[in-house]
């Protein structure tokens, strides 16, 4: 009896020991990852600073981290020739968001329609492929010529870029829907609309959400490029102005600002992804990270 109890105590002790060492291993791993990340940033930015300082790389063309910082501060304190940076940033964000929403809606609706209709997709498929292969960014010039320097053409270009990314994913997502599930709701008496609501759309959602991550990036690119091509306000205009005055530091500063905006949007998309796709089994890597 006593030996049994002793045994149990021993097993418990070993288990506790195992757990503790597993936790230590995880903490150590995380620490090293962060050390690596910080080291990498220091090497890249520090190297840039050092090379331009030493004159091995011309800072007139390539800028310099400290100068970029100064430009950044100047943008936020002095503003620009076209109003404060906030004003310009807000306009660019509005254009990108507008394009994102319009492009996403159009892409999802058309992708699902074409994906679920065999005949339509066979007819339209080749044309979509052709349109996809032309360099759509050039459309920006046409939009500006056609619609002037306002926000319209920027939203349009962003929407076009977003549309194709989302469209192809929605289309593919619908094609990948488990036919068994469709049979299942059809037997239960679902109408075509109900099949879409209960099966096609939720199932394609995985693909659509995945495309939204890159889609927002494309929306920003569309808005910026259209602004560079011709605008009265916006971050793109600041960039093209800085280019005109040989000021790489301001261009970099604008890049930093836009990157921050994109990361913020990325965060919101991840939140959306989490709430919409909470039914999915955790991926292997998540499950491992005890």
């Amino acid at each position, binding site marked *: 009896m006593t030996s049994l109890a002793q045994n149990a105590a021993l097993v418990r002790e070993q288990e506790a020991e195992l757990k503790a060492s597993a936790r230590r291993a995880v903490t150590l791993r995380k620490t090293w990852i962060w050390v690596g990340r910080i080291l990498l940033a220091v090497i890249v930015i520090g190297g840039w600073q050092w090379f331009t300082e030493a004159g091995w790389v011309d800072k007139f063309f390539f800028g310099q981290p400290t100068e970029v910082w100064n430009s950044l501060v100047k943008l936020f304190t002095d503003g620009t020739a076209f109003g404060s940076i906030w004003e310009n940033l807000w306009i660019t964000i509005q254009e990108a968001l507008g394009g994102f929403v319009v492009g996403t809606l159009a892409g999802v609706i058309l992708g699902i329609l074409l994906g679920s209709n065999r005949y339509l997709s066979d007819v339209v498929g080749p044309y979509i492929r052709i349109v996809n292969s032309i360099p759509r960014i050039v459309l920006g010039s046409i939009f500006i010529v056609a619609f002037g320097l306002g926000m319209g053409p920027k939203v349009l270009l962003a929407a076009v870029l977003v549309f194709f990314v989302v469209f192809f994913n929605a289309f593919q997502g619908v094609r990948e829907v488990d036919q*068994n599930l469709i*049979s299942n*709701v*059809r037997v239960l*008496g679902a109408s075509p609309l109900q099949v879409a609501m209960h*099966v096609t759309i939720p199932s394609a959602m995985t693909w659509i959400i995945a495309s939204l991550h890159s889609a927002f990036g494309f929306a920003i690119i569309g808005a910026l490029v259209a602004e560079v091509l011709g605008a009265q306000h916006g971050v793109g205009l600041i960039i093209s102005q800085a280019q005109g005055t040989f000021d790489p530091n301001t261009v970099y500063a604008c890049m930093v600002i836009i990157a921050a905006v994109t990361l913020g949007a990325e965060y919101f998309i991840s939140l959306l992804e989490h709430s919409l796709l909470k*039914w*999915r089994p955790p991926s292997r890597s998540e499950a491992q990270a005890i």
Partner: protein
Amino acid sequence: MTTVSELHRRGGTPTDHGGGGGDEGARIEIHGLTKRYLTPKGETFTAIRDVSLTVEPGQFCAIVGPTGCGKSTTLAQVSGLEHPSAGSVSVGGKVVDGITNGVSYMFQADALFPWKTVLNNVLIGPVLLGTPKREATELAMDWLRRVGLSGFEDRYPHQLSGGMRKRVAMAAALINNPRILLMDEPFGALDVQTKAIMQNELLQLWEGLRPSVLFITHDLDEAVALADKVVIMTSSPGTIKNVFDIDLPRPRGDVQQIRHEERFLELQGQIWSSLKDEVTRAYKQTAGASA
């Protein structure tokens, strides 16, 4: 309870009201059914040929046959998901054309919606029939209790074991109180013990509702233990080879026990000797095709 689900019964025919047993609307008549598929190469492939079979209202009919002989194909024609190439299926005297009313289908592959919780998976049937959400929820909770899954309403399918998923599928299939229940190897992937439990549960639920059942299985014991009638299909292209009436008394009781009864063993032996040739032939066919 039965009265609640009767309210949600589908089916337009006036004869179709409540609890399957003896209800003419639940008769399945298959006449000279043939199904040909178009292969990607553009050739036709005959999956089933001239299948004729009648399932009386409230009867439990098992179909056994070698793999690839067209059992699932037959079920797909009965459900109305596919159209026969020749012959016809009638349910309750009406020729099937499009989805048949009042049919529930448990598919061979897992067909739960991974993005719906257990509760929502079960209540989709009544919801699609237009039942108000509150009532449908009550009904679904009741069915989850019947299949022993109370407390799992909020889980997603990937958080359940294989046996639990089958129970959800069973609740989802029975919640609409179908006149006809199509089951395609529902317990095929389960371990022996879970399978026995599920078989007992199915028998109990079936005796309560009495739909006509077409039940595909590879397990002869299962076929004999559950069914009133066992149909043997030939190897591909499938057609009916033999029909055995199972005269074991009902209620059958525990499927584990019935296996040892003399009459059970006798019937099982007869059916196996009929099926054996077909299985051997089907095996040679596929082996020959791949050689």
